[in-house]
């Protein structure tokens, strides 16, 4: 052996050992995971760390979900989007619709063992409203007498009484039939007596799950609350992993290491067209609208004919099929098909470029118009914006695309600085009101959600009447009329209602697709073979 070959051999063996170590070191991890799968459900739907587990600050979807595991409100949502009693056993409404009497469950305990009492409702609502709490979402309580004043830092009496330990009487400023739904939102969760500065890290609620550990940007681990009044969950541990990259979540699912997967839009076809993948799919129409906000106070968009031209110029069915793999239904209004107030008879504006050009000419723009279309930078919005640009160009509506991150886009749209903005709206509570009122009512111009700055007295009246109407049937009729009016006036251009799509491992039993973000609390799900 020459010296040279000796040294090469030596180096080669070091090299080989390193490689071997890298490949073999991982060992047999699968073995112990197999058994733990039965007791732990791994959810991969969160793609960023929850902002806070303090319900007052839970303004994003991951936080809202986690708050739903840890806390209860007086009411809650089922996965299908029905409102049902939670900490309140039942409630009565006074004939004038102003007074809600909630009868509370009397043997519910918080995770620390304290008994839940009516005072906790009062304390929690007061806390949410007080300015020093710095809550992000306070509006769900605004219907209560004195709530707005309290939120403004004034010392006003709140319309909330606790005649005894298990009764809460809430007085509203005006009748509001959907009020019980507002109380199922994360912000209205009921907290224990002591809420310290680290409450977000050590939350105590009455919910079906207790927090075990929160590793920021990594996972949240929950243990089941065996004393849960609504029936304890069927498995021990819920692990909400935070996986920022959708392709990684898909790989984890295929490796069998996560149990529930959100199917990214661009992968829809591949999941639907592969037999073994399709077997795991579950899907349901979500309460989520994709739309183009049309600022009705800017330039040519003040003219309803220009706005109608926009609606005519877009081939929504093709767009839906191509861009979203048909994952949804074309919208002819803002009220989703699964909610009361949806009108199946209303037909979308037909795709008709000539009609669009004609309308523009009638409005005094024979040479077309120039507008800005804003979108966020994250997929699939830029592609949607580009496609819209191509469609509208054919009708002589020339778009300049502006892409910003979500924060900047939202700020600009709220400030009325955008002509057109393409975005989505995900319901906070399952009711037609949650689409009509925030998106199009005069009271919500700007920050409230109405980035179209649409303001139509007849529409406002219909929605206001519906909000006050106690009778469900009559309310639905009013919603339908309001929706129809705004659609004809093109307060915004509704594009489609989105279908939620998940893949679920075969051993997960009883999973129902939540149509609302905090609708799935894993209490009816079990883990089998």
């Amino acid at each position, binding site marked *: 052996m020459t010296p040279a070959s000796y*040294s090469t051999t030596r*180096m080669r063996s*070091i*090299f080989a050992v390193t490689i071997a170590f*890298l490949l073999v070191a991982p060992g047999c991890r699968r073995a112990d995971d197999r058994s733990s799968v039965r007791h732990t459900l791994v959810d991969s739907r969160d793609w960023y760390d929850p902002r806070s587990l303090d319900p007052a*600050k839970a303004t994003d979807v991951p936080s809202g979900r986690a708050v739903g595991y840890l806390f209860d409100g007086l009411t809650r949502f089922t996965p299908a989007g029905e409102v049902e009693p939670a900490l309140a056993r039942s409630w009565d409404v006074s004939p004038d619709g102003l007074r809600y009497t909630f009868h509370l469950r009397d043997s519910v305990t918080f995770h620390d063992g304290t008994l839940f009492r009516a005072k906790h409702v009062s304390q929690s609502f007061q806390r949410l409203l007080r300015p020093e709490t*710095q809550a992000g979402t306070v509006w769900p309580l605004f219907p209560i007498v004195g709530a707005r004043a309290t939120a403004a830092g004034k010392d006003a009496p709140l319309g909330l009484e606790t005649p005894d330990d298990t009764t809460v009487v809430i007085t509203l400023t005006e009748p509001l039939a959907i009020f019980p739904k507002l109380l199922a939102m994360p912000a209205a969760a009921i907290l224990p007596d002591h809420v310290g500065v680290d409450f977000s890290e050590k939350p105590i609620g009455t919910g079906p799950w207790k927090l075990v550990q929160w*590793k920021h940007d990594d996972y949240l681990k929950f243990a089941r609350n065996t004393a849960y009044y609504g029936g304890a969950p069927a498995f021990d541990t819920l692990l909400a992993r935070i996986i920022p990259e959708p392709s990684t979540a898909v790989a984890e699912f295929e490796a069998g*290491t996560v149990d529930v997967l959100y199917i990214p839009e661009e992968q829809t076809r591949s999941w639907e067209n592969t037999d073994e993948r399709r077997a795991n799919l579950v899907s349901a129409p979500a309460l989520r609208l994709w739309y183009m906000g049309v600022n009705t106070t800017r330039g040519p968009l003040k003219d309803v004919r220009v706005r109608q031209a926009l609606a005519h110029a877009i081939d929504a069915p093709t767009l839906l099929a191509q861009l979203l793999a048909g994952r949804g239904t074309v919208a002819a209004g803002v009220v989703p098909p699964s909610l009361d107030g949806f009108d199946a008879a209303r037909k979308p504006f037909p795709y008709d470029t000539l009609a669009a050009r004609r309308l523009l000419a009638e409005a005094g723009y024979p040479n077309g118009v120039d507008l800005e279309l804003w979108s966020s930078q994250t997929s699939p919005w830029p592609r949607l914006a580009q496609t819209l640009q191509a469609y509208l160009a054919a009708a002589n509506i020339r778009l300049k695309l502006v892409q910003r991150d979500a924060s900047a886009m939202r700020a600009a749209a709220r400030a009325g600085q955008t002509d057109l903005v393409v975005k989505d709206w995900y319901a906070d509570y399952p009711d037609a009101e949650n689409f009509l009122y925030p998106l199009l009512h005069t009271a919500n111009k700007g920050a*409230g959600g109405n980035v179209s700055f649409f303001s139509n007295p007849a529409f406002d009246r219909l929605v206001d009447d519906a909000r006050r109407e106690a009778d469900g049937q009559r309310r639905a009729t009013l919603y339908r009329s309001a929706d129809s009016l705004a659609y004809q006036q093109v307060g915004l251009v509704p594009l489609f209602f989105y279908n939620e799509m998940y893949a679920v491992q075969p051993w997960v039993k009883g999973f129902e697709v939540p149509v609302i973000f905090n609708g799935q609390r894993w209490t009816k799900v079990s883990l089998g073979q």
Partner: protein
Amino acid sequence: MTLFLLRRALLSIPTLFGVLVVVFMLLYVAPGDPVQAMVGERADAATIERLRAELRLDDPLPTQFAHYAGGILTGDLGRSYITNRPILTDIAERFPRTLQLAGAAMLLATVLGVSIGALAAVRPHSWFDRVALATTYLGISFPVYWIGLLLILFFAVTLRWLPASGYGRPEFLVLPALALGSRSIAYLARVTRSAMLEVLGADFVRTARAKGLTERAVVVRHALRNALMPVVTVIGLDFGAYLTGSILTETIFSWPGIGRYVVMAISRRDLPAVQGSVLFLSVVFVMVNLLTDLTYGRIDPRARKATEV
């Protein structure tokens, strides 16, 4: 030596102050503000105004900056606007994980890259050299994103040997370290090879061989050591870059490190979080550079002079 360190430390103060000002200005002129993220999709104007006032976002620019810089001077990086957690706690939680990943990637890159490079140089134009050259070409050209997904598909989905992503036991480190280090492995191999080739042709190597030293002693003790300067430079630069956030790798492998933290903070306009972490990472970068400079002195006596002033 002490003087040198002291001078370097003093020199870095204006650099860090500059970083502070630039980051502050960038976030100030960028559209959007943290309140948009704090209130969510549906909000009321009164809440937005109240939060803006509480965060002092409506104060004049110099007042805001003075308020912020004041906190830094007392060692307080403040609390995140969005999560209300102390920035220092956030960094203390995430930086060690980034350090772990960057360390593993660099270790892998140094061991593999230098060995491959040295082996290739010892036998130039051999089959090993050719394969190594071709592979390193690919290693440099492929984006880390693509390599990461490929590694996941192969080792986690097909073979099921390693976890696809996440943080925890040592096996979680293997794929991200390999993905992150891939470019460095390739680059170090190439740098080592060319430096070695140059050194192996030098007079002192011929002298060493003539003295009758074993080939191993010639290669390892004489040639490799003299070829290390460019290698150390590359290691220092890459390590600094990895430590200050390997955003893509952390994202693909769900690695809860500082890179993802900074990106999230920027997208939510979380001013204290961005400033605190950028400032911290600048300090880290300055320190890694300093360490690299000190290492030069250790390897090459000629460079020691500079550090002894």
